[in-house]
């Protein structure tokens, strides 16, 4: 019962936050509200006993990405307010997507159902053998780093590549800044 009440409370807060994200026109408040949104999401994950996911969501979603969004918002030209455009197409899109999602949700297995397909494939094996074999209590770590080592390697490379891409796009001149400076100075002297 407590579980349900907390979940209900968090999800209604989520709805309120979403409404205000939709309603505000100031960019910086949208960023702040998005941070609040992901923090609420991580609270919901804690309520669902998915502590690792919640931790990641809190650190990455509401921590770093909010900072990056603030930085990006600070770089945008001032004075331009986000005007409300014609909402009709987006409302139709939103309604149809939510209808599809509701239909899908009706076909999902119940929350915590032990006979759900995802709990029958390899999960019982992992849960059973990992503690005796690894002597590491956190099964999530075992799955992430050992059973699914290739996936995690791929994820790390994805993050690395994303970093490389951003560096290549945004800071093409930072390394040459000093040399350019010297060159320009020489040109000016001439």
């Amino acid at each position: 019962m407590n579980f349900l009440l907390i979940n209900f409370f968090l999800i209604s807060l989520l709805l309120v936050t979403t409404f205000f994200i939709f309603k505000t026109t100031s960019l910086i408040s949208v960023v702040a509200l998005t941070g609040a949104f992901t923090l609420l999401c991580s609270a919901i994950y804690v309520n669902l006993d998915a502590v690792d996911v919640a931790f990641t969501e809190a650190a990455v979603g509401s921590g770093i990405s909010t900072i990056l969004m603030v930085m990006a918002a600070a770089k945008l030209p001032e004075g331009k307010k986000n005007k409300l455009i014609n909402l009709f197409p987006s409302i139709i899109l939103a309604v149809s997507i939510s209808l599809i999602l509701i239909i899908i949700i009706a076909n999902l297995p119940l929350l915590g159902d032990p006979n759900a397909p995802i709990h029958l494939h390899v999960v019982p094996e992992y849960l059973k053998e990992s503690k005796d074999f690894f002597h590491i209590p956190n099964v999530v770590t075992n799955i992430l780093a050992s059973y699914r080592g290739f996936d995690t390697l791929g994820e790390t490379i994805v993050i690395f590549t994303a970093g490389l891409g951003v560096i290549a796009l945004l800071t093409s001149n930072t390394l040459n800044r000093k040399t350019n400076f010297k060159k320009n100075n020489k040109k000016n002297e001439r």
Partner: protein
Amino acid sequence: MRDKISSSPVLSVVSKILFAPIIIFGLYVQFHGDYGPGGGFQAGVIVAAAFILYSMIFGLSKGETLVPIMINRYLMCVGVLLYAGVGIVSILLDGMYLDYNVLSSDPSTGQHIGIILVELGVGMTVATVMIALYHSFASFGEINE
């Protein structure tokens, strides 16, 4: 933007006090990931947050002296190479790629070593990529003068 140092003493004092505990918490999350929630990804982000806080409060130039851009970029690569290198080492020790069992005479200890090294690689890459992202965003649009 670059050298805009926060004028508020509250911010600078609080960020100076918080810097070390944030990094220690990051290390705790990194190495306690085997026993509780956490691991490389989260730890990397937390450690990066400390450095980002520092360069937010004291200006980008000071942040750059703390973590030079080039060293940051090298560490990005070192993280990925550490992860991939563990796989190569396990091939050299007659195992399969990323098969940590062969890293030690006892398979269980081998798994421990492998998981810790791999998580360290992930943490290193994530932390340095986040710092690099912040630096790129913050220094974007600067006039080269």
